[in-house]
């Protein structure tokens, strides 16, 4: 089963290597990993999508927790969450088919962000299913280049993956 882990880490040099090194040497598979700064400049947040049964997830979480630079891990898979991915697609677009492509772009509420002589660059955000669907729809035209960011995810409502544990607990209780 696939799990989404929200991991808060110290924004120290080498922290990404520490995390990915742990996955590779213990033989865990990463589906995707994104990382960026958070509201706190000293803290980065990783969204890691990992494939494995409960035993593997248990070990992944515990081993990650042992890294000194890892502050907090939250497996949000079982909760209500929003997840998004962004994709840039450069697709073959002779003048004859541009209209058709623009219709697809509209359907997916995507955007055209660049026009070349024979190509269009399309930007699309959404969950994984939507991204897969737009890629499938554009394939017949010939995709020249494609880049995906991997997943970012956040819990819905007032639930949080943040450092203020106490506040979080209180908020969660209020929500209930």
């Amino acid at each position, binding site marked *: 089963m696939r799990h989404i882990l929200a991991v808060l*880490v*110290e924004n120290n*040099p*080498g922290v990404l*290597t*520490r995390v990915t*090194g*742990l996955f590779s*040497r213990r033989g865990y598979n990463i589906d995707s990993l994104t990382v960026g700064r958070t509201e706190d400049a000293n803290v980065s947040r990783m969204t890691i999508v990992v494939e494995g049964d409960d*035993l593997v997830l*248990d*070990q992944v979480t*515990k*081993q990650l*927790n*042992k*890294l*000194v*630079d*890892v*502050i907090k891990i939250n497996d949000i898979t079982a909760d209500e969450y929003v997840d998004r991915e962004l994709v840039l697609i450069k697709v073959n677009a002779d003048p004859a088919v541009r209209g058709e492509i623009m219709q697809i772009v509209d359907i997916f509420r995507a955007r055209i962000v660049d026009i070349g002589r024979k190509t269009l660059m399309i930007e699309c955000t959404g969950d994984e299913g939507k991204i897969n669907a737009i890629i499938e729809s554009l394939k017949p035209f010939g995709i020249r280049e494609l880049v995906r960011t991997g997943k970012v995810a956040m819990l819905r409502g007032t639930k949080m993956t943040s*450092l203020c544990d106490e506040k979080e607990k209180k908020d969660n209780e209020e929500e209930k």
Partner: protein
Amino acid sequence: MMFSGAEILVKSLLEEGVDTVFGYPGGAVLEIYDALYKSPLRHILVRHEQGAAHMADAYARATGKPGVCFATSGPGATNLVTGIATAYMDSVPLIAFTGQVTCDLLGRDSFQEVDITGITLPITKHNYLVKNVENLAQTIKEAFHIATTGRPGPVLIDIPKDVSLKKTNFNYPKTVNLRGCPSFGPGDPKRIKEAADLIMAARQPLIYAGGGVIISGAHKELQELAELADSPVTTTLMGMGGFPGIHPQALGMLGMHGTKYANCAVCECDVLIAVGARFDDRVTGKLDEFAPQAKIIHIDIDPAEIGKNIQIDIPIVGDVKQVLHEINRKLEQKKHPEWQNKIARWKEEYPLRYENGGSLKPQYVIEQIYEVTRGEAIITTEVGQNQIWAAQFYKYNNPRSFITSGGLGTMGYGLPAAIGAKVGRPDKVVIDIAGDGSIQMNIQELATAVSNDIPVIVAILNNSYLGMVRQWQELFYDGRYSHTEISGPDFAKLAEAYGAIGMRVTKPDEVRPALEQAISANKVVVIDFVVEREENALPMVPPGGCLNRMLGG
């Protein structure tokens, strides 16, 4: 007042109560060695950096205090790697300082540059590259905290040469603020209650104790638990000395080279209490058939060890000493005469034994070492048959008296370990029980022992084979001894060339006088025991086999 990074390093070590460092100078640590020159710190100059790491490691194991080693950049740093990995696998608080090229040369493949923080990433608990002298004192404070708290482990600090040169103010921090470094207490009271209830309900309990007992200083609490629950105790290789070897409830070691009676007890116990142990493959044998009838209680400070290899019924995460204290408070005196009788029968039926004929037997040498030292020595070992026999035929009654590379299985560990242990515990007789193969891996450290006047005894069980590998070739490869016959120098003469005392023993009746002479000499002594060549370390569980089906059991 302003101090250089090197001076700050030395002052910080003194603040941490460090008295001895083991190391080897070089270009990138010239500043640090210059600061050492003026300091009260004792520095033991080794002959190879691997020796420095092992010495610091064994100093830590013998004393319970963190060990410290120094090396220069590049090859100096990479030479530490085996020592750091050894400490990592056995949870030893080791702090390694390495020099590094100046910050402006980093990443340019400079002379003697190596990415040692990258290399040691998977074998340290944490590591640092300090690029700003302002952060040095705080980093050292954190390193000592990380290395010594929770499950201990090695920490490496890489210091570029210009950082050791730059000056700043020195205020050694009083506290650390590490959000990702949790502390552990006495464990979940609910789980402790469940564990105590299960132990009270047990009819055939067994305690399986590992190195965590020694690290946590929980040997008294363990003995109390064993006596209250009337439970036999088997220890892992790392747990030797955590429970008195001469105690009537002691079963010795379990696992691949354990006693048959310990392994039988594992197979038939109804409650297994794992204390500071990690269900290593050398202990469990075939996982599906490990303790098949038992409910398992697992007490460990590292949450990641719970359920890693085996399903646990009652996990307790916490400091072993505190957890045992809490459990013991909830126990009443139990008696299990039937279980004890069963175990007594196994002990009678399957004792540890060997044929003592005309030739010199390695097991006999170890028994004699035990008798001559009355079990009060610190024993270090190399890796292989020597290590197994040292675990089987010497009875360890005190914690921190058996120092061996358990997890990594590092040949060449024993001699530097003996030196490190002797530096930490000069009051103890320290003996390295070695093989003729292993000893040659770090034999250069004889010079360190002699020149620093560190009187250790090296007892080489010399069979001119890589004995354990030969044993596997005999048992599992139809006796094809592929490259396991190994020659060595005349060890007695070599010892003398180093300025140590060298002896050679070939007959059983020479063993005791040689040992007595070695101990009373109070010098570095190498005794070359020429033993039976094809003696096997038995009994043995074939790899992947079930614990109670042992060869030679």
